[in-house]
């Protein structure tokens, strides 16, 4: 959006800042050393997007139940393949992390004094996520291999 740099700031929209803004590049992201907070923020967006895209697919596959039993069973049969089972494990990781990091955000937002503990809270979210995720992932992997 090169054109925007020539537009007066006030016409950029109500959310635009008074300073001139430029597009965000990957190099900015690497250079900006935000530490755990930045990692958490990036992972939260990434996992959120991933979960939403799965949700779209999930609404479509479930809607087949109102279409025909054969159509629904065929869609579920697709989910039994190795590709989707590995995807299912990744979905677990995404949901568990997004949820635990979300709780970390809620804690910091409602009890601002916990900002001082934000690094410890991040690693706690990671730890709780792993405790929830690893046994589930191991079990799903066993189910996948044993089938």
């Amino acid at each position, binding site marked *: 959006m090169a054109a925007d740099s020539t537009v007066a700031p006030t016409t950029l929209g109500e959310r635009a800042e008074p300073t001139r803004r430029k597009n965000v590049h990957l190099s900015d992201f690497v250079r900006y050393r935000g530490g755990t907070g930045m990692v958490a923020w990036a992972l939260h967006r990434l996992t959120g997007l991933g979960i939403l895209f799965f949700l779209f697919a999930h609404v*479509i596959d479930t809607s087949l139940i109102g279409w025909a*039993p054969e159509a629904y069973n065929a869609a579920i049969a697709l989910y039994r393949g190795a590709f989707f089972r590995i995807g299912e494990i990744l979905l677990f990781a995404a949901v568990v992390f997004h949820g635990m990091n979300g709780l970390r955000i809620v804690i910091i937002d409602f009890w601002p004094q916990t900002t001082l503990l934000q690094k410890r809270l991040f690693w706690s979210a990671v730890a709780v996520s792993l405790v929830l995720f690893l046994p589930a992932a191991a079990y799903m992997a066993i*189910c996948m291999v044993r*089938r």
Partner: protein
Amino acid sequence: MNNTRWARPESLLEVYSWIFMRVSGVVLVVLALGHLAIMHLINNVDIINYDFVVHRFVGPFWRTYDFILLWLAMLHGLNGVRIMIDDYLIGRGWRTLALSVLAVVGVVFLTLGSLVIVTFQPLAAGR
């Protein structure tokens, strides 16, 4: 600027959005993890089929659970994308286009999902 005062929000919509993300997020931790545990661990894709869903949707409990989960997850996700669009799409035209597409996608998927959960009736001809 007076630093002792809270910043005035740009619009009340953003305040409601902020509250919604936190409230729905906490509820979703319970509902989504519960859904994952029941449908992916206790049961899984080897067990789930048409008959399984017919059995599951006999009473109103799981329909209600799924309906609340669908709406909270969809609105939470769509609102998250709305915030991302506001963050990354600075051009007014592109942003309006993206927000419009997002709104259409949201209406389509929420309608489709709700219709399935509310109107599903097992086939009388039974399988």
